[in-house]
């Protein structure tokens, strides 16, 4: 399944990230994960949110340049070797990873690893065939991250 990541163009100036989060807060959009890629003078803020379409509309209305990018959100075990099994698989099959980041779902249980790859369909089939679960946008929006209450 394919999920969507919001990519926002950001000039490197103070307050840009704050402006983004403020727009999303007003639009009642929850942020699951964030990464920022930058050069000297500009960057791209990548977000996984519960409602990407609403987020894109709100940010565009605020004058920002936003793109929804298809990504794979892959469920992995939150334990040593969990991520390695996935990356080795992608490497072995020659899938190029443009960007990747993760967030923990349940501590020491499950984590989500988000990958932006060059051959989306191939990678999707590949990981699913090898027993990984991928989450789509709906699945991502219903999960409750940072679930620290479990004993």
């Amino acid at each position, binding site marked *: 399944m394919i999920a969507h990541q919001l990519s926002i163009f950001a*000039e490197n100036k103070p307050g840009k990230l704050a402006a983004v989060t403020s727009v999303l807060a007003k639009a009642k959009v929850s942020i699951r994960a964030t990464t920022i890629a*930058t*050069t000297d003078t500009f960057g791209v803020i990548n977000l996984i949110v519960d409602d990407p379409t609403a987020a894109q509309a709100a940010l565009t209305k605020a004058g*920002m*340049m936003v793109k929804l990018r298809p990504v794979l959100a892959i469920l992995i075990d939150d334990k040593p070797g969990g991520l390695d099994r996935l990356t080795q698989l992608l490497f072995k099959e020659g899938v190029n990873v443009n960007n990747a980041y993760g967030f923990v779902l349940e501590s020491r249980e499950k984590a989500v690893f988000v990958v932006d790859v060059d051959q989306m369909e191939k990678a999707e089939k590949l990981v699913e065939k090898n027993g990984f679960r991928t989450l789509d946008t709906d699945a991502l929006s219903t999960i409750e991250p940072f679930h620290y209450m479990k004993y």
Partner: protein
Amino acid sequence: MYWEKELETMNREQLATLQLERLQETTRRAVQSYYYGKAFTDAGLHPKDIRTLDDIRRIPFTTKDDLRENWPYGFLAVSKDELIRMHSSSGTTGRATVIFHTKKDVDAWTNLVARSMYMAGLRKSDVFQNMMTYGLFTGGLGFHYGAERVGALTIPAGAGNSKRQIQLMRDFDTTAIHIIPSYALHLYTVFEELGLKPQKDTKVRMAFIGAEPHSEKMRKRIEEFYGFRAFNSYGLSEMNGPGVAFECPEQNGMHIWEDNFIVEIIDPVTLQPVPDGREGELVMTTLLREGMPVLRYRTKDLTRILPGECPCGRTHRRIERITGRTDDMMILKGVNIFPIQIEKKLMEIPGVGRNFVILLEREGFNDLMHIKVEVEREFFNGELRHLEALRRRIVEELKSDILITPKVDLVEPDSLPKTEGKAVRVIDNREK
């Protein structure tokens, strides 16, 4: 086809004879003024010394500083009672210059604008919306009078207020507009915001663009966005204003009306004439002005005469679009650069948006050029490396063109300050 066939297609020999007659008459009138009276005396020159067209070179040049220093009446060749109009150039540096017109002057000017607009294709049946500042600026009233002379229904919309402009265009079926190029690009974004398409939702079929130097690429963009033909024009208040030189339907160079002006192109350093085809500074002499004749005026505009005849049949020579000004020239590390060069290059690169700004900065003893470039919204695909590739391409292309390596920043579309008038392209932050 022609507004004044005989004058527009007159053979070069006859045109030269007409020019000489008018030049002699003009010098006789000019020396009535305080300034030229003195200038001719100082140069030991008399109007009857002008026997051939080449003798014009014996007359000293007139500069904007001369006009300023003899402000306001030093150039008047008639009594003040004869004047019916004044215009003034935008005085961004120092005191503005003033130009006075008699009734005959306004009439001759109006005729030239009408001739120019008719040449581009404006007709009596057109509805002409003039989106220029009225007032002291010549672009407003100049075009207004010209369009009325042609007989078009003229809407004096004035500058700015984009939504009202669009409303007027739609309410009165405007077919022709007069607009500043950078404002045309801005207005297009307003069309987009309103969910309108100029091609579909208006009847505009032609535009006169001018008052601001722009590249061919920029014209093409405007034509593409709006789906009409945009005609370039050139003018300056010292030579009336609009109607000095104008594109014909060939859209290849602007016919400069040589029955009204003598045109010289000179090397701005040696002040010697350059041959047709070579770039230099445009120098102009009025041939019909009564109130305030101006001789050998250094426009500081750089252009060249396009050699060869125009297929349209007009014999008046064509100048190329203005490629820069001798005074907005940026000198960086000893290299002369014109903003228009940068604009031209930028507009050729896919992914570059509508606006940019050039900042000149000094770090220690080093001059730096810093260019902020808007990214086209459609270009952004969410990837940083895609943007970085664009940034590098801009740096490389500019480097090979202007020979210095600029620092380039990409910024969001529509984030740079835009004015509803002339675009501010260069900000010089270096200590003077």
